[in-house]
C-alpha cells in the first residue's frame, strides 16, 4: 500500500500523542456538554409537555399550581396536604366533566410511588395526549390489593404479574430512610398488570385501588387506637376521615375526538372561586416553568458554546505549537514534490480530524451522560425523559465542531503554506 496523506497526518498526530489526546479530550468535553444541554432541553420540555396526557386540570391541596403539577402529575414529591372525599364528590358532580379521577399519593414500593386511584384511571385517563395505556401483560386492577406496575417500576423491581408487593408507609428519600421506613407487611398486594412504557412519569408508578390504601391506613388508625387487635382492617372499618385523596385529574367535557373545549376557562374559574384547594392547568404550568428556566437554559447553552470555541482555540494552539517541530517535515515534503496547497491541506485536514475525533468522542460521552442525567431526573423529579441522544441534535453539533476545528487549523495551515524550504532544511546544530 502506498503512503497517503492520511498516513502522514496520522503519524503527525501520534508523534505528538499527549497534545493530540488532550486536544481531543477538550473538544469531546465541549461537544458532550453542548449535546447534553441541547438534548436535555428539548427532550425535557417534550417530556413535560406530553406528560400531562389528556388531563385538562389538576386539583390539589398543594399550595401553588406549579408544585401541584410537579407532585401530582410528575410524582416529584408526595403532596403534603390531602383533599377530602366530599371535596372530590362536589367537584366530580358539580361541573360538566369528561372525568374526575381521584389519586392518592404518599406511600411507596421500593422507592417507586404508589398511586391509589380508581379503575377510571385506565379507562378514561390517557398518559399521553394521543395514546392510551397499553398492557405488556395482565390487565387493570378490578379489586382491592391488586397493583398495576408502570414499565420502569416493573423493570426496576424485576416483578411481573402474580408477584407479591408490600407497600411502604411514606416515600423515603434515602436508602437509610427506606430501611427504617415502616412496611405495611400485613397487607399483601398482588401484581395483576404491567404497563408498556409511555415515556411519562406514570412509568414509575405502582397503581392500586384507592380503597386498598385507605384500608391499610385505617389499620394504622385502629392500631393507634388499640382497637384492632389481631384482626386486619377491612372496607367495613373505613370512616370518612380515612377516605383521603391528594389530587384529582380533571378533563372538562369535550366533543368526541377534540381536546380543546370552550368550557375549560369557565370550569377553571369556577373551581378557583370555590377555594380550599389549588387548581392547575398542566400546560400553563409547564410553560411557566420553562419561562423561569428558559433564561438559565440559554445562559448554559451560551456557556457550552463558549467552551466549544475555546476547544477550537485549543486545536489551533496545539497545531500552532507543533509547527516549529514540523518545519523540517514540511520542507522535506515540499522538496519531494508536495505543493504549498497540499501542505496547507494536510494541516487543515489534521485540524478537522482532531475535530472529528473529538466530536465522535463527545457524542459517546454525551450518550452516556444523557443516560445518567435521564436516570437522575427520573429519580429526583419523576420526569421520564428519552435517554437517547437525538441524531438531529448530534449531527449538526458534530458538523459544527468539524467546521470549527477546520477554521482553527487555518492559522497553522497558513504557517505551513508559508514555511520556507531553505529555512526548514537548514542543518541542525
Amino acid at each position, binding site marked *: 500500500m*502506498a503512503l497517503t*496523506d492520511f498516513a502522514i497526518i496520522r503519524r503527525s498526530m501520534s508523534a505528538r500523542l499527549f497534545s493530540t489526546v488532550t486536544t481531543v479530550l477538550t473538544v469531546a468535553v465541549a461537544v458532550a456538554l453542548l449535546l447534553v444541554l441541547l438534548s436535555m432541553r428539548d427532550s425535557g420540555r417534550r417530556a413535560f409537555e406530553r406528560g400531562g396526557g389528556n388531563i385538562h386540570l389538576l386539583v390539589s391541596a398543594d399550595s401553588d399550581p406549579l408544585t401541584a403539577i410537579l407532585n401530582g402529575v410528575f410524582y416529584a414529591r408526595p403532596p403534603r396536604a390531602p383533599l377530602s372525599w366530599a371535596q372530590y364528590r362536589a367537584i366530580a358532580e358539580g361541573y360538566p366533566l369528561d372525568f374526575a379521577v381521584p389519586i392518592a399519593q404518599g406511600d411507596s414500593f421500593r422507592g417507586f410511588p404508589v398511586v391509589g386511584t380508581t379503575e377510571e384511571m385506565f379507562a378514561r385517563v390517557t398518559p399521553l395526549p394521543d395514546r392510551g395505556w397499553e398492557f405488556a401483560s395482565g390487565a387493570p386492577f378490578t379489586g382491592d390489593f391488586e397493583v398495576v406496575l408502570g414499565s420502569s417500576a416493573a423493570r426496576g423491581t424485576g416483578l411481573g404479574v402474580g408477584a407479591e408487593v408490600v407497600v411502604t408507609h411514606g416515600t423515603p428519600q434515602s436508602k437509610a430512610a427506606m430501611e427504617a421506613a415502616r412496611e405495611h407487611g400485613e397487607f399483601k398486594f398482588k401484581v395483576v398488570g404491567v404497563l408498556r412504557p409511555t415515556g411519562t412519569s406514570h412509568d414509575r408508578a405502582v397503581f392500586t385501588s384507592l380503597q386498598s390504601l385507605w384500608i391499610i391506613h385505617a389499620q394504622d388508625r385502629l392500631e393507634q387506637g388499640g382497637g384492632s387487635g389481631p384482626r386486619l382492617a377491612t372496607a367495613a372499618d373505613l370512616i370518612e376521615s380515612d377516605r383521603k385523596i391528594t389530587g384529582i385529574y380533571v378533563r372538562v367535557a369535550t366533543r368526541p375526538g377534540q381536546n380543546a373545549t370552550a368550557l375549560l376557562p369557565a370550569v377553571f374559574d369556577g373551581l378557583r372561586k370555590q377555594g380550599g384547594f389549588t387548581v392547575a392547568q398542566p400546560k400553563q404550568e409547564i410553560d411557566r416553568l420553562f419561562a423561569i428556566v428558559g433564561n438559565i437554559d440559554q445562559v448554559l447553552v451560551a456557556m457550552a458554546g463558549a467552551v466549544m470555541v475555546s476547544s477550537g482555540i485549543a486545536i489551533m494552539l496545539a497545531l500552532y505549537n507543533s509547527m516549529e517541530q514540523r518545519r523540517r517535515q514540511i520542507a522535506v515534503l515540499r522538496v519531494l*514534490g508536495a505543493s*504549498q496547497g497540499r501542505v496547507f491541506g494536510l494541516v487543515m485536514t489534521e485540524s478537522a480530524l482532531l475535530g472529528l475525533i473529538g466530536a465522535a468522542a463527545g457524542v459517546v460521552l454525551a450518550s452516556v451522560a444523557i443516560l445518567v442525567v435521564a436516570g437522575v431526573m427520573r429519580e429526583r423529579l419523576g420526569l421520564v425523559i428519552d435517554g437517547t441522544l437525538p441524531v438531529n441534535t448530534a449531527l449538526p453539533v458534530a458538523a459544527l465542531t468539524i467546521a470549527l476545528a477546520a477554521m482553527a487549523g487555518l492559522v497553522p495551515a497558513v504557517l505551513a503554506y508559508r514555511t520556507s524550504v531553505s529555512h526548514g532544511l537548514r542543518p541542525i546544530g
Partner: protein
Amino acid sequence: MTAALDISELSFRYPTAEPNSPATVSVRALRLNPGEQALLVGGSGSGKSTLLQLIAGLLDPTSGRVEVDGQDVHALRGPARDRFRGRRIGMIFQTFNLLHGFSTIENVMAALMFSAVPPREHRARAAALLTELGLDRHEAMADRLSVGQQQRVAVARALACEPALVLADEPTASLDPENAATAMDLIQSACRRHGAALLCTSHDPAMRARFERIEMLADLRAERGVGAAGGGAEAARSIGGAGSGA
C-alpha cells in the same frame, strides 16, 4: 541531446539585499549531460545551497533560466513546478532530512507519493530500491538506523522517481573521511545505475579526486565573465557565488 541540466545567465539576489550589492548566486552557463556527474566546490556561505534550490525551483531567480531535462523549471508555476521537481529532480542533504516517525520504506514511498507511479507499485518499488542499496530493514523506523543506513535511505528516496538530475548538498559534510568515501561511492554508483546526472556540492577538497568534472565557485561569477575551470567537456560554463543564503 536534451541536457539533464542547462543553466544560462542565472542570477539571484535576495529581495532584502542592497540594490547594488553583488548577486548571491550568479552563473553564466552550466550544462550537465544525462548521467554526467559534476562537483561544485566552494566555501561555506558561497551560495552552493542557494544554487541547488534555484535549480530545484524552490527559489525564483532574479534573472536567467534553468532547464532540467529540457523543461524550464521557472516557467512552471505552483503545483506544476512542485510536481515536476518531485518527478525529475532528486535531492540529498547533509543531514539526510529523513521523515522522523516514519519507517525506512515509508521514507522512500514519501517520494513516490508525488510521482506518476501508480500507488499500488510504490511499496514494491521502494523495497527493491532499498534492497539494491543494501538495506533489508525496510520496516525499521528511520531514526533508529545508523548514519550509514540513513544515508542509503536518503539516496533511495532521491532516486525513487527515476529523476533526470540528483542534487546532493554537502552529502558528506557530517561524515568522517572513511564514511564520506563510502557514502560518495554509494551516491555516485547509484546515480550511474539509474542514469541520473549528479551535481554535488562540497567545500571538501578531498572530494575532487572522485569527479572528472569539477566546477569552482569562488572566481566564476557571471559578472566577471570568468570562464570555466576544471576538466568538464562543455565549454560554456562558469559558476560563481557570494553572499549569504547558502
